[in-house]
């Protein structure tokens, strides 16, 4: 297993239990979705795994040597997760200079390669974030994360801030990028409808606990937990009629 999370617990201010004994694992090159509504503790898990928060108890084990570049993250807000003063190229070469031994020419070549990988081209290189759309910025954020050559990419609601059509493009991009690089994904989302496209496995979180886990196909077709059934019931689809039952989920 690339990532092993065991009995993770996070208590804020000594009172609020955000994560309560959560365990899951991601195989090398695998793809795990962590699904749950706001406040279910999924983002806190992601922040602990990337080192932005300290767990109250429990362990996070990452296979092999723990380097800063092993785990990278793509943030929810593409408008604020890039330095507004930094061009796309400079953003990528900065990471390359930090994590690789490439020389200046090598870094330029690699950053062009990364731009191509995420569906941008050299024209976007000198652009500042404000000249880019939300989708383009999220592509840059993905390229930046991949620049460190991570084994695990944590995607924290990475498509939630985007329009539905752009979401689809980014999801396709993520599928292609995983095929091309072999990176594993931990895909944090509140939206079950985007899961099946990108992920093989899924855990469903509710109030800081894992209520269900399994392959995406299993969980989506035969959910065992009532909460999962409600989540699945709340995904819009053709012929979908909102009912009172569904509204009570939120």
């Amino acid at each position: 297993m690339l990532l092993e999370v065991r009995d993770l617990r996070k208590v804020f201010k000594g009172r609020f239990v955000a994560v309560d004994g959560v365990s899951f694992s991601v195989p090398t090159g695998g793809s795990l979705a962590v699904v749950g509504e706001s406040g279910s503790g999924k983002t806190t898990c992601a922040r602990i795994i990337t080192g932005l928060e300290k767990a109250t108890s429990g362990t996070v084990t990452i296979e092999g040597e723990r380097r800063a570049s092993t785990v990278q993250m793509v943030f929810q807000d593409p408008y604020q997760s890039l330095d507004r003063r930094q061009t796309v190229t400079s953003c990528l070469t900065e990471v390359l200079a930090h994590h690789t031994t490439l020389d200046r020419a090598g870094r330029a070549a690699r950053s062009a390669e990364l731009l191509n990988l995420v569906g941008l081209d050299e024209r976007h290189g000198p652009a500042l974030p404000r000249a880019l759309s939300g989708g383009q910025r999220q592509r840059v954020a993905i390229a930046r994360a991949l620049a460190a050559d991570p084994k695990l990419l944590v995607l924290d609601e990475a498509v939630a801030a985007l329009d539905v059509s752009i979401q689809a493009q980014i999801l396709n991009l993520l599928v292609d990028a995983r095929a091309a690089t072999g990176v594993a994904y931990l895909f944090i989302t509140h939206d079950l409808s985007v899961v099946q496209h990108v992920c093989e496995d899924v855990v469903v979180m509710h109030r800081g606990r894992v209520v269900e886990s399994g392959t995406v196909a299993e969980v989506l077709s035969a959910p065992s937990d009532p909460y999962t059934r409600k989540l699945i019931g709340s995904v819009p689809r053709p012929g979908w009629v909102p009912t009172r039952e569904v509204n009570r989920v939120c």
Partner: protein
Amino acid sequence: MAAAVVCVLVVLLALLAPWITPHDPTAVDPLNAYAPFTGDHPLGTDDLGRDLLSRLMAGARTSLAGPLIVVLAAGTAGTALAVTAAWFGGWFDAAVSRLLDILFAFPGLVLAITVAAIFGAGFTAPVVALSLAFVPMIARVMRAAALRERNLPYIEALRVQGFSGWHICLRHLLPNLAPLLVVQAAIGFGYAMIDLASISFLGLGLQPPASDWGLMIANGQPSILAGFPQQSIEAAVAVVITVVAFTVVAERLAERFGGGVR
């Protein structure tokens, strides 16, 4: 735009003064005392017959150098303090903030006058004291901005990338705060100029025969009673024009950068 031109012009005059003054600013010529405005003395002469235009130009050097040193020193110290406090947060930030609040309550001019009275009149003592007094003014604004900036997601993104605090502060945080710092420095420049002119006027700054503007206002006082107010008025106008020009430029910069932070 006009204000920016005035700023550049004043700075150029100050820089080039030793080479372009029409007369020696300290050359005494009692026969020509209180000379009227003529081609030879476009702004007249003072009680000792020294050419006022030349003295104003020479005086621009110390009158601008003082505030410049004050904003450079206070800007550097204030920004360093503000960024460190915002970065580490917690008790350190709380301690720095309380200290700044206390210092802020103490008027800078009073501090500078006290220091000059203790350590003797001159250029250095008031400038050093005023630099200290300006630190809280700049640090308070910069801390608030640094705190906002530090909480933006891109800083967290950089931490996940594995960059050190030094790298993030020097390469990302500071450059993003730079526009605000420029605005603060330009505003502070105007205040510092008035404060230093006041100190010179009180006789605690530069001493005669230097031609500092504040000193010229003070030295011109006896002549006002004699019916020749030109020295005091001209020096005062020079101070006012320069301060207004720098402040207007600062305001324009503030408008353009929206206070430095989105």
